[in-house]
């Protein structure tokens, strides 16, 4: 085991101001074990009294080596790694990876599978925002919000479990379609959620949106200007709260998002409160998409029948020799992908989640790289916390909605 290094000011000389060296300002370590850094982020704070002069993020406490590990697996088997990147958006990670593989090997996805993918990713977006609104409330001392948000999150996890058998790490979306068709109870469960949820969002808004204590903590705090956001590559709700209307679901539609009628909530204030409002509004918009996708859900297969890339259904294996061979070949060797590199991105609850895949002609990717939204979003934190109090830093960090699994990979 590595030795525990004692922290000395010598290491941080180049990062902090002159005043810290003379002892005029104080250096404070926040994290990696801190309840409001949302994981294992470490921040080195330089404080003048209680005012933040400088904040230096230190990441890598959750570095998992996902990208390298994926190179050692075939395209199909590598998919399980991507669930565990951004663990609040597991279905979305699967989707982005599968879209990339499908683009690389030029695979079509049936209509039904696309609609189910949309339903599930939008439900996952709601679940992710629910955890966010719960922990955001918790950080700002609105404890009951956490309990309400997790109550609704269970409804979504039940739906995911219904489809895939797993609550979080579903790996339900597969290259070429889905693992299997949704069960018969699926539609009723989603409709039940659509019926319940709008009232619950109203409940959250009654609790928080006009709450004077909440407003005091948020209004004008952590202002992120349009220019800073764009220059740091900030995406997702944080960018849209700064007045930039950029949503990949509208800008570069995938999985048939162009067929759905929904709005992209945009605010111009750019402060913590605006980021909160954008996410609350996204609850309603996501629900709209879920409802539309469910209404038009076509019948038909959920997997491409291109047997060179997609395993045959279980029922065929017993009766068809060819299917058995395909099944065997696909799960032992995998399928070869052309020597090419592609980039494909989806809109995750935190922003642009992109995956870069490079094939070398074999069954394993030569290089996998993830462009994760939290990593870029985190880079603005030092810019926007300056001049605020330590107590506000907690709110700002929460409002950017970073996930450390997404940052460190």
């Amino acid at each position, binding site marked *: 085991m590595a030795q525990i290094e004692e922290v000395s000011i010598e290491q941080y000389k180049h990062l902090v101001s002159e005043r810290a060296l003379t002892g005029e300002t104080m250096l404070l370590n926040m994290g990696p074990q801190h309840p409001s850094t949302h994981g294992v982020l470490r921040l080195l704070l330089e404080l003048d009294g209680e005012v933040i002069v400088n904040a230096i993020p230190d990441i890598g406490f959750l570095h998992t080596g996902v990208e390298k590990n994926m190179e050692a697996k075939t395209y199909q088997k590598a998919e*399980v*790694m991507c669930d565990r990147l951004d663990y609040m958006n597991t279905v979305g990670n699967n989707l982005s990876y599968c879209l990339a593989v499908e683009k690389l090997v030029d695979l079509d996805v049936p209509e039904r599978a696309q609609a189910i993918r949309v339903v599930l990713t939008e439900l996952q977006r709601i679940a992710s925002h629910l955890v966010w609104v719960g922990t955001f409330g918790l950080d700002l001392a609105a404890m009951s919000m956490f309990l309400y948000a*997790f109550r609704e999150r269970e409804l979504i996890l039940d739906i995911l479990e219904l489809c895939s058998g797993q609550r979080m790490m579903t790996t339900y979306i597969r290259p070429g379609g889905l693992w299997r068709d949704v069960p018969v109870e699926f539609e009723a469960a989603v409709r039940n959620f659509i019926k319940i949820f709008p009232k619950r969002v109203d409940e959250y808004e009654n609790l928080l949106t006009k709450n004077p204590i909440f407003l005091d903590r948020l209004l004008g705090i952590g202002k992120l200007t349009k220019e800073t956001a764009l220059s740091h590559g900030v995406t997702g709700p944080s960018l849209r709260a700064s007045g930039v209307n950029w949503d990949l679901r509208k800008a570069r539609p995938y999985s048939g998002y162009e067929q759905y009628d929904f709005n992209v909530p945009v605010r111009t204030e750019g402060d913590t409160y605006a980021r909160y409002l954008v996410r609350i509004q996204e609850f309603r918009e996501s629900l709209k998409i879920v409802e539309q996708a469910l209404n038009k859900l076509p019948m038909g297969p959920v997997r491409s029948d291109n047997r060179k890339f997609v395993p045959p259904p279980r029922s065929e294996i017993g009766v068809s020799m060819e299917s058995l061979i395909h099944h065997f070949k696909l799960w032992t060797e995998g399928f070869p992908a052309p020597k090419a590199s592609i980039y494909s991105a989806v809109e995750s609850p935190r922003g642009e989640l992109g995956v870069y895949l490079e094939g070398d002609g074999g069954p394993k990717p030569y290089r996998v790289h993830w462009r994760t939204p939290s990593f870029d979003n985190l880079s603005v934190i030092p810019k926007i916390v300056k001049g605020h109090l330590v107590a506000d830093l907690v709110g700002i960090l929460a409002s950017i909605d970073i996930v450390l699994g997404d940052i460190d990979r």
Partner: protein
Amino acid sequence: MGVEQKLGNMGVVTTSLETAVNWARTNAMWPMLFGLACCAIEMMAAQASDYDMSRFGMELMRASPRQSDLMIVAGRVSKKMGPVLRRLYDQMPEPKWVIAMGDCASCGGVFNNYAIYQGVDELVPVDVYVAGCPPRPEALIHGVLTVYEKVKAEKFKDLAKG
């Protein structure tokens, strides 16, 4: 009908000090508020409305290791996090227990690579392993109850030996 009368009817209860202390420990165990990765979300779910771990005397997550009895290692431990985890464990006062929650903390899980400790038992002594990726909240609660069983069977003289 006062409480005195009711108590009067119960007579005398005899037990050993050991049993009484161990019983008390199982009903007010404070876990450390310490989440690493995916499992931390399920740990939060176990604390939240549907599963409500406070039924077992665990509603109080302490952010400081110096106030906690139980460390739930919820998630994968990277090489950079390892020393931090060990220091947190060392800062906890005796007696203390550790649950390795999930496959990553138990054995490395799907991440058999350069970055992840293949099980948190390389760093700290683990009392209970909870399987699953991530384990369901029920599984975590079962793990906690298993710790309780262990605590109830503990002997003072074994603890004194360390």
